[in-house]
């Protein structure tokens, strides 16, 4: 008996109703996301420090290399006073981070975290996940506007330019992959890779590369961290946020990174391949996602920031035509997944 069926029989709720509640809240949702976020932020700071010949976080839990530093920071931020600037739009300012984070959390409903571990399965779940991700930039714009701060407004403007450029490439790479597998359901895509024994990254490396680069842009990772741009515009749209709202805005980008890397694992790395049991399969998906996130945060130590015009040129003039190549490759490789 699976844990979901056991819980549904005890709670008296039907299985189809319990799944979409558990998936965003427990696994692959928020309960799994919290330790991932703490670990990834710690790893990001530690690795960057090592590359720059510093020690990084150390004082909290010195023996463990300062891994609990982020937990301490989190507790401090949770109890900090939320300051709303006098000139800010109070309700938009306070509601926008909550709305943005909820939208990203809703994405966990459709992205499977293991064999049979999903909120609900649809034949267009790939597109649903993408649509939910594409909703968050507009809330970020509301954050920037509501803060009534020049840095925030510049950051919000950048967010729009950057997100549209990134989302076009992301959608193109996802559609190229869907064309290759002949399906837009995550479960069917993973099963197709399992049956063929070939992960999508081998069959169509171009689409995988495009997806990875677009994820870096959408989640404000270096070299495309224009929206936050710490040295230029403080924290972009999140400049005025404090306390728990600041924690939410920080978690927003990491949640996006987590869910998009989960999508990458399912679409290009074969999901729970080569395991088929729920527990081991979920662990496999989780590990692959974590490794991908570590790679993306490691880039902070080795790249500088690109300018806005360079990013726009790269995405519209270089990567979008490359997406056409990904489509052609998918048309050729389609026979592998029949």
């Amino acid at each position: 008996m699976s844990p979901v069926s056991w819980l549904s029989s005890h709670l008296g709720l039907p299985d189809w109703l319990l799944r979409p509640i558990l998936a965003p809240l427990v696994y692959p949702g928020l309960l799994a996301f919290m330790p991932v976020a703490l670990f990834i932020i710690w790893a990001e700071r530690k690795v960057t420090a090592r590359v720059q010949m510093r020690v990084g976080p150390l004082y909290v839990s010195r023996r463990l290399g300062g891994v609990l530093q982020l937990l301490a920071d989190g507790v401090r931020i949770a109890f900090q006073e939320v300051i709303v600037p006098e000139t800010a739009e109070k309700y938009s300012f306070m509601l926008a981070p909550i709305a943005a984070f909820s939208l990203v959390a809703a994405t966990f409903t459709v992205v499977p975290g293991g064999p049979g571990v999903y909120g609900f399965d649809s034949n267009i779940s790939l597109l649903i996940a993408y649509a939910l991700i594409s909703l968050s930039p507009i809330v970020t714009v509301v954050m920037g506007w509501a803060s009534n701060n020049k840095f925030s407004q510049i950051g919000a403007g950048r967010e729009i330019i950057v997100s549209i450029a990134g989302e076009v490439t992301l959608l193109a790479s996802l559609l190229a992959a869907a064309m290759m597998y002949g399906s837009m359901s995550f479960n069917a895509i993973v099963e197709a890779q399992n049956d063929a024994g070939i992960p999508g990254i081998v069959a169509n490396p171009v689409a995988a590369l495009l997806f990875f680069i677009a994820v870096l842009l959408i989640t404000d990772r270096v070299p495309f961290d224009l929206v936050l741009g710490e040295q230029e515009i403080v924290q972009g749209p999140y400049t005025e946020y404090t306390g728990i709202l600041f924690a939410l805005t920080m978690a927003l980008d990491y949640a996006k990174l987590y869910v998009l890397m989960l999508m990458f694992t399912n679409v290009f790395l074969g999901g729970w391949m080569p395991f088929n049991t729920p527990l081991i399969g979920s662990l496999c998906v989780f590990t692959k996602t974590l490794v991908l996130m570590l790679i993306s945060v490691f880039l902070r130590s080795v790249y500088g920031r690109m300018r806005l015009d360079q990013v726009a040129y790269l995405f519209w003039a270089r990567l979008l035509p490359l997406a056409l190549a990904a489509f052609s490759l998918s048309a050729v490789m389609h026979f592998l997944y029949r």
Partner: protein
Amino acid sequence: MIGLTVSSLSDAAFIISLLALAAGSVGVVVARKALHMVSWLVVASLGVASLLALSGYGYISVFHIVVYIGTAITLIAMVILMLGCDVEPRAWRPGKLLLSVFAAAVLQTPVLLYKPAYLKMEGLELRKAAQPLLQCWLCTVLVVVTVATVVIEAVAIARSRGGSERP
């Protein structure tokens, strides 16, 4: 086992989507700041998207979100940010609110009456989708009147803004 069924939930979802659509439509008209209008437009569009999904057009619903909210409304928001045109209207006009409620009611009545959610049509045929609206002659007349009023209102607003009022 509590008495939850798929049909009762989809009924609730249908009503919530209609409410979101109505609230969004009214909000767009009565909001006093440009970015609030954009936010209400997002709510209205999400209502439309979920109505489409409940009517069996899942694919179109998702593309509605991606194209209209993810791109079009985001670009409108960008223009508003760049122009900084968050000017509050000078006078409170209840006529606008009445008009928007009227328009929303007219557009939603046929949907409520005929419930295309359970028709499960294959593919989107505009003729089929508009059929419930055209079957009721009163609804058709009201839609025509509403559209005409909105156009006249839009022209009036555009004329008053374009002339001597601007510095």
